[in-house]
């Protein structure tokens, strides 16, 4: 039974034997070998995104936003939800594990019984809590204000689901097949409304806005908040609009009238 002395005055154990010295050098060497690729990978990781961002792409001059007039929303109408589901390949199911990128919320004032209906999706905050908490930077805000999940980097920790004040994020709980080619989504990653970024980049409006307009409800408007000549900017400048949970100071890109 080997024993080691724990006296405060460790009696001189002697100089390290040859074996110990070899092990020490080997340990240091191994650490170096193990760390070196990691250092190199970090260099590559940091260098990669810089390439190619100078040519056309998302620019900070634009800030995409939506204005929703909940006075025009009918309780029971789900045109926006159906459009989103079919555009993005969502199942449309409402089990607790199903992803919902947009949902209709019915609210009722407890004092006077007044009811209201409105769609709720990712609010595309200027200061998104989901981006703050993401450990890998997978949840990020694009230059033009759209908050996205980089599913190449998402590790599925679900911190963003916890942190979102609007419960906008969903987690994919099971293996998926038959994804839409424009909308990659997969098991084990977080996801949320991405303002139909594949449509926006083509110059179209998000599917929910398009569907609402096509059906003539006129409840949803999409546009560039930074462009004073855009319809959305003009309306926000003229009418009183609100953000949900304004007190959090998140400066959301989605604004509401009528709540």
């Amino acid at each position, binding site marked *: 039974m080997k024993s080691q002395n724990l006296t405060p005055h*460790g009696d001189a154990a002697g100089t390290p034997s040859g074996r110990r010295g070899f092990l020490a050098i080997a340990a240091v060497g191994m650490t170096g070998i193990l760390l070196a690729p990691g250092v190199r990978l970090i260099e590559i990781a940091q260098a990669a995104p810089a390439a190619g961002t100078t040519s056309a792409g998302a620019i900070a001059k634009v800030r995409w936003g939506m204005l929703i007039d909940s006075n025009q929303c009918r309780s029971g109408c789900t045109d926006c939800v159906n459009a989103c589901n079919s555009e993005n390949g969502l199942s449309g199911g409402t089990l607790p*594990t199903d992803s919902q990128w947009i949902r209709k919320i019915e609210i009722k004032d407890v004092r006077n019984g007044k009811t209201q209906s409105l769609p709720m999706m990712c609010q595309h905050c200027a200061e998104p809590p989901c981006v703050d*908490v993401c450990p890998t930077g997978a949840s990020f805000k694009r230059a033009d204000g759209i908050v996205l999940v980089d599913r190449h980097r998402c590790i599925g920790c679900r*911190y963003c689901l916890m942190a979102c004040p609007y419960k906008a994020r969903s987690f994919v709980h099971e293996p998926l097949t038959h994804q839409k080619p424009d909308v990659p989504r997969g098991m084990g990653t977080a996801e949320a409304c991405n303002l139909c970024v594949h449509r926006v980049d083509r110059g179209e409006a998000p599917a929910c806005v398009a569907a609402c307009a096509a059906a003539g409800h006129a409840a949803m408007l999409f546009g560039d908040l930074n462009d004073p000549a855009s319809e959305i900017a003009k309306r926000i400048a003229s009418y009183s609009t609100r953000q949900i949970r304004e007190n959090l100071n998140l400066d959301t890109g989605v604004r509401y009238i009528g709540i």
Partner: protein
Amino acid sequence: MNIVLHKLQGGSRGHHQLLAGLGLMLALGVSALLYIEHYGHIVTGMNNQFVWGLPDVFSIFLMLSGPGTLSIALLASVFGKVEYEPVAPLSGLLAIALVFTGLMLLMLDLGRPDRASQAMLHFNPKSVLSWNLYLYSGFMGFVGAYLWSLMEPGMRRFTPWAIGLAFAWRIGLTTGTGSIYGFQVARQGFDSAIFAPMYIALSLSYGLAVFVLVLLLACRSNGIPLGDALLARLARLQVIFIGVALYFVLIHHMTNYYFTRNRDFERFILFDGGIYTNLFWFGQMLLGTIVPFALLARPPLAQLRARIAASAALIVLGAFAQLYVTILGGQAQPLPLFPGHQVSSSFFDGIVNSYTPSLSEWGLGVLGLALVGLIVTLALKLIAFLPQRLDDAALQKYRAKHALAAS
């Protein structure tokens, strides 16, 4: 007289039974893990409403107890309490084993654990989970260095450095663990600066309880005489830690209740939360705080051993209750999207949701416990962590010799 460290004597039937039991638990845990990996989180009880479930409760318990078990080593090497020096190595070992397993359990619950390396390659300075990676590995490294300095002959001069860094890291680590919740503005149950110090206080209490349980088990199974003097000190320490933890918990709940905007949540937890209310009052408060406090406040010497063992076990149970209430209770309550309104939607807004942990989640928890047990059991067997004697006479002589040498 010197306290001599020795390795645990293996080969006994009890030892083999323990290893076999832990091995079985490990096998069950690993099969649960593989099941979840293959089929996805749909096979667990977690969903878009209950985002972090039972595995997170186990993981946070381990991550709180780990730095907490280091308290003994801190008292010995930072605060100069000589009587704890013989058990400082055991304290360090437990700290590493618990923190390692806690972090591992967190990583295994990821939706894409194969991408865990992304967390190392891309660091988000604002994300507490990102810091945690460095806090935990740094903590394990510094405690490892501390153990080396203690146990390698002639390296004692590095002990103050190693333990000082471990101490600083320990504070940072538990602050980080608490801030995972404290920094979230979304939910009424979190969103509070008090989480950081509260978790430090809780970690002291939980960590000491785990340390006491392991110490009692190790000494009993290996025939190491454990004196009442050391146990009495540990009992007194435990009482202090329970008190400090209780203080922070009270402040947290009182403040939440005082704030009108958070009162709904507090009412939910304290009165009409069903399982959460039961776990809070019966599990966390009664079994986890009041009963251990009463048992250890003025224990008669004859009952000291039984009382301290019972208290430690109850504190651990109370810990699980407390974490369940905090983590899951915090998620059960709907988000306050429209105060003053009843809210309903297809995404379960406006209602209190219910959560049932699945068998596979229990499996993950069992995996964590098994791994801690195996690491500690094997480490005690392979490396000399335990002193040969911890009885009153041996400790008294050790103290005297140390005092003489210091003067």
